[in-house]
Structures are given as C-alpha cells and as structure tokens.
C-alpha cells in the first residue's frame, strides 16, 4: 500500500510494476478510512470491525465495492 505524489506518478508506476490488482484512493478517502479504522485502536473497548461495519464504511467512502469486499 503505497503513496504517490500525484496520479501521474501512480499511473507511471502501475504501468511499470504491473501489480496483479489495483485500486486508487484519493487523499480524502484514505484519510477517512485511516481515521475510522484506527480511532479506537488504543481504547479499552476496542474491537475489530465486523465485515458488515467494514462494508458500510467502504461504501460511505465510495470505495470500489468489489476490490474492498471484505469476504
């Protein structure tokens, strides 16, 4: 899971590296995902997201539903 300076840099890398699968997130999407995923990680009542919770979060962030299908 890598960060790129711009979509042009990312597209050049994808063309060169040819990863077997590929999806792109905007900074807004990855920031929203990271915050929601980890905000409770150090809390006493932390528990992992259920598949249903993960699917709802991915949908709220408009992520590719097939790529981000959790199961």
């Amino acid at each position, binding site marked *: 899971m890598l*960060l790129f300076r711009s979509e042009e840099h*990312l597209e*050049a890398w994808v063309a060169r590296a040819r990863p077997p699968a590929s999806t*792109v997130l905007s900074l807004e*999407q*990855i920031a929203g995902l990271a915050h*929601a995923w980890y905000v409770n990680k*150090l809390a006493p009542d932390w528990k992992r997201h259920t598949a249903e919770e993960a699917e709802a979060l991915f949908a709220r962030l408009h992520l590719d539903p097939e790529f981000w299908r959790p199961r």
Partner: protein
Amino acid sequence: MSTDAVTTAPFDQEVRMVIARRIREQGVIPSIGEVATLLQVEPASAEAAFVRMAEAHVFIPRRGSPEIYAYDPFCSEPTDFAVRAAGRDWSAICGWDALGIPAALRTTGTVRTRCGDGCGEPITIEIGADGTATGNAVFHSGVPARHSWDDIYFT
C-alpha cells in the same frame, strides 16, 4: 482484511490494555517479557496471549515469532512511513497505517514518506485531529481487501 471476532478472554484484554498503554504513554511497543513483568505473570502466559492475539489478527507478529512487528497502525521498526504525533516519532508499515497513527492517538500529526514510484520526491501530509488530511498524495492498494491477510507482510 481482518474483521473476525477478537479474542475476548479477560486476560487477553488485560494484555491488550497494557500494550495500548505502553504505546500511548511511552511510545513503545512492548515485548512479551515486558508485558509479563507489568502484569506480574509468567512469560509463558503472556506469550500464549500474544499467540492468540496474533492468530486473531489483533497485530502482525514478527516472522517466526509471536512478538509484535506491527500493532497496527504502529510499527515496531523504522520504515519508509514516518509520523510525528503527540510529541513523538512513529513509523508505520504503509500509507493507510501512517495516516491512522494520529487517529489512534487522537491528536494531530505529520506523515512523511517518499513517492512510491521511486522518483524520491518527498510527500508530507498534515493530519487534523478530526482525521482530515492536507497535502498532495494519492494512495494505491494492490491487494483486494478479502486477501489482505493471505500474506500480510506483502500487503
């Protein structure tokens, strides 16, 4: 991706809280031995909890060991994803985790890395306490979510 039920044994929860407290208050991911000392239990008991938690994907263990490699989003070793938050320097195993460190600490932060295409250009992202991000970057994932734990060291 890991969304299974977490280990809920009371002792495992105690271990998890010790780990979280050490990270939050000292900026350190503790070893099995440190956790055993802090909880005043035999190292074998702490190790058994670490094994259960690793199997439940609470954290990523070191290869061939139940010790913690990454208590996501926090990595126990320096990486290419550096984060400054809560007055400390942290590292993360990927961009997703790097942006998650300020969230886990419930504070603001700065993520520093370099462009993934090898051009060497620095990337700096400022994270607000509400999780909003400012900077120039796009994120790429090459592993579908349902396969993220197939080879977590690659993911």
